């Protein structure tokens, strides 16, 4: 058990290590470096030399990688190209804002997804299932920027209930942020909920068809008791992993949604730094987003391991 956990954590670190190499090599081998793209036409002679020295680009690539990785582990990502600010300071408030957005969406989304998933599974192919499933298919297939744009058009422009875009400074207090983030949270939660509800649905359906549930029905266990005692615990366990993967996958959607709502989070920083060709920031963002992805998956794996007694004994036998 312990061995398995340590192995999973190590694998996570290996993945991050490979990601860091990929992004480093990616930004390295592609045409132009940070200085030539930043200085554009003035990229020659003295100025180029000075820029190389300032960014430390005059040493070989592998040495830069080692020192960059060493600093990155300590949370120091160097200086951003455009703002002349330490990336750490740029990232701080952005991460906080994105976390607020994502966690609000997750906390609203998970309970709704559970309820919808269970309802659709228990009333499979009946009216509630058909109605809810149709809506979830629409919600999960339509791109984030379309649902976000429609939300703004209907709720902010036609009904004038909420502000359509977020116009607040990056470092704003939570209460000031609240009315501004309702629409972005709804936009993200909608897609997330739809994805999760469908997975819960199929997981519950699978368990309902299993032999021990059939046995419980034959034994005369009351329906709701059977659902809560026999079906749900077994159905929700495998769903955890899939839900984690979905949340991680939706990070990309958060980027787009933040742009649509002009929300000062990590996602908009991704677009800004790529438009400005701010490669040090891009590298830092890649590593941070990948770590979020890896840790969500790791968390889900550990949770499944801890909640599933079968897996424990399996590992001991091995």
């Amino acid at each position, binding site marked *: 058990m312990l061995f398995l956990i340590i192995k999973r954590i190590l694998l996570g670190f*290996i*993945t*991050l290590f*490979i*990601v860091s190499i*990929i*992004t480093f090599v*990616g*930004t390295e081998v*592609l*045409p*132009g470096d940070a200085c030539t793209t930043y200085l554009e036409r003035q990229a020659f002679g003295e100025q180029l030399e000075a820029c190389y020295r300032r960014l430390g680009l005059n040493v070989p690539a592998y040495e830069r990688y080692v020192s960059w990785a060493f600093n990155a582990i300590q949370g120091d990502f160097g200086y951003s190209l455009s703002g002349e600010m330490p990336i750490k300071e740029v990232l701080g408030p952005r991460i906080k804002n994105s976390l607020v957005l994502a966690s609000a969406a997750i906390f609203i989304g998970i309970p709704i997804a559970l309820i919808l998933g269970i309802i659709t599974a228990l009333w499979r192919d009946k009216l509630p299932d058909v109605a809810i499933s149709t809506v979830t*298919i*629409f919600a999960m*297939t*339509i*791109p*984030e*920027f*379309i649902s976000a*744009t*429609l939300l*703004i*058009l209907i709720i902010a*422009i036609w009904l004038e209930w909420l502000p359509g875009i977020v116009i607040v400074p990056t470092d704003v207090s939570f209460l000031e942020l609240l009315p501004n983030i309702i629409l972005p949270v709804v936009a993200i939660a909608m897609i997330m909920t739809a*994805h999760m509800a*469908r*997975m819960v*649905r*199929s*997981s519950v359906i*699978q368990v309902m068809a299993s032999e021990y549930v059939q046995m419980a029905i034959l034994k005369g266990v009351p329906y709701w008791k059977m659902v809560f005692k026999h079906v749900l615990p077994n159905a929700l366990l*495998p769903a955890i*992993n*899939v*839900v*984690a*993967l*979905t949340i*991680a*996958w939706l*990070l*990309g959607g958060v*980027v*787009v949604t933040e*742009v*649509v709502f002009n929300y000062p989070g990590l996602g908009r920083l*991704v*677009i800004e730094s*790529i*438009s400005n*060709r701010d490669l040090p920031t*891009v590298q830092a*963002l*890649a590593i941070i*987003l*990948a770590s979020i*992805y*890896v840790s969500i*998956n790791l968390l889900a794996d550990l949770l499944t391991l801890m909640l599933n007694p079968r897996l424990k004994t399996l590992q001991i036998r091995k």
Partner: protein
Amino acid sequence: MKLDNIYKEEKKSSFAKLSEIIITMASRPSGLIGLSILVFHIILAFISPYIAPHDFKAIDPTLMLQAPSAEYWFGTDDLGRDVFTRTILGGRTALTITFFGSLIALLWGGLLGIFCGLVGGKIDDVVMRIVDAFLSIPWILAMLLIVSLLGTSTEVLIPALGFFYGKGIVRVARAATHDVIAKDFIVSARARGHSDFSIIWNEIIPNVRDAILVEGAMRWSWMLLGFSSLSFLGFGVSPPTPDWGLMISNARGLMSFAYWAVIAPIVGLSSLIIGINLTADAFAKALGIDRSTKAPV
């Protein structure tokens, strides 16, 4: 002689199998809807240049932001261009790029996955680690990086999308190969003395093909989503080209007075994505593959 007959029958039946699959797909209401939307969009993509009522890039300041009328069915945009013309042309770019992108994804993802499943061991471990690492970079960041450094021409977009959406197929193809390789008929083929190539071509590929094709069909709809998100963010195809993502992002700022310019491309893009999705779903069900418990990685 007898062997020849068997092969002929098999070929005939594979053709019959295809039409059977399509009939099964169309027999469910969701599959029928999906197929008809997809077919409609494909036909539209072929004929739209000939039926477009106006020039898609004709700018006319006097016609700015006109409401829908008999002359301009879906109104005009901020540069006085006909929204109807641009909407029916918008599917061409998206369909072409994502179709060829999916083909590339299927090819390299499928082949690498089958290869990994076959060789196993250290090589398999290393390749899967790298694939996992690529999977953990958010697609949007990776795509933006490639596109912003290499440009947004079609020659860059198609392989970039193909590469990025193929890595998920690697896993599916590998898992399917793993399942097949332990089966008895592989062992007996080996015992009969068939070459490795013959075993891969005649035994393994026919058995993993379905899983890979279904995954590829699903990737197609995600790739369309990714591609239009890129266009929306201004990193996709460049402006004069009629493209839905681009049209939505242009018309978005003015949608408080000219909602038609944003609604038309939204309907176009949403219906195509839903059409591909429903078709892929029906395709999976017709082949008896359940992918509803899979995460969209």
